[in-house]
């Protein structure tokens, strides 16, 4: 059971990383740089948008970058 949960978690690793790590990171970087996200978004919402899109991309391509592994 534990192994199955771990396997599923790792298979969805890029998506989870995009939704759990990138949003707070983005929000804190925007705050430090004193940048305001467009369209009235909060820094955290901008982070979720960035992390969500990038995470889906990495999940789909198997890479966070444009190169294929």
């Amino acid at each position, binding site marked *: 059971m534990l192994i199955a949960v771990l396997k599923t978690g790792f298979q969805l690793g890029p998506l989870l990383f995009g939704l*759990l790590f990138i949003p*707070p990171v983005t929000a804190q970087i925007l705050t430090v740089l004193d940048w305001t996200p467009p369209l009235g978004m909060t820094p955290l919402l901008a982070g979720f948008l960035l992390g969500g899109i990038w995470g889906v991309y990495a999940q789909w391509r198997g*890479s966070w*970058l444009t190169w294929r*592994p």
Partner: protein
Amino acid sequence: MDAVTSHGGRFAGMTKKELIRAEQAIAHKYMGGVPWLMVAWGLGNFAIWLALWPLVMTGTLPLGVGFLIACANVTLCYLPSHEAQHDIIGRKGTKWRWLNELIGHVSLIPLVLPYRVARLTHYEHHKHTNDPNRDPDHGTKAKGPLDSIRRTILSQQPGSQSGLNNYGAVLQQMGREDVILDGAIYKLLFFGTLCALAWSGYALEAIFLWWLPRQFGLIYIIFFLSWAPHHPAEEKGRYRNTRSWRSKLGNIGSLGMQFHLIHHLYPTIPLTRHPAVYAEMKPILEARGCRLGDL
């Protein structure tokens, strides 16, 4: 009758059997004893990396300085464990065995590489150096320095089947599925810690004290410990699978890997003694037709 060599100064003309005896006589002089410098290096490096967290979080140390130190910490963390992987600090059954295992486990934490995974896959690397199908590190083969860096970055991508991502498959082939779990737990703890730090308001510390230094360290370690000493990684065999070379960053900057050939010939000689062994053994290595470069 063994082939007789024509190079190698006073060793020229010796048979292979005589050469191996002379080689072993030199090697055995440098084996044994506890390499205390590596012990201090392993524990000290880990302690410094741990200390960075409160120092940066409390504003005592600027994040930029902490980042540079963390990059050095992660880059330096592999070698003490490497000594432990070869039982150099304390063999089984000796009084320093606990220290060997402690260094092996603890020093690798910043790199997020479990000791058992590192040890087993590294033994496979020694057994099958440069074998495209059996050397776990053969994926680090690259055309040149920039290609090595590019390939390491690619091997860190989630869909990659080379580099550290290949170690699971290697362990499976070895029938050591139990050790794969170590890797899963380490990965889970690493990303769990990163996320916990980020959501607690320490996202920049998580990135600059661990995530990014780890990326940098992996590139540096793979470049100097795997790519450079085996390049072009095409020949197999004891005397041809590893080379010595002169690094532009010197022996310390290249993590002692200018003499990696000595490590592959005699893995239980401590790293800090490699230059002396090389100097004494060089004529034999020449006689053996080793790839000595300009060192």
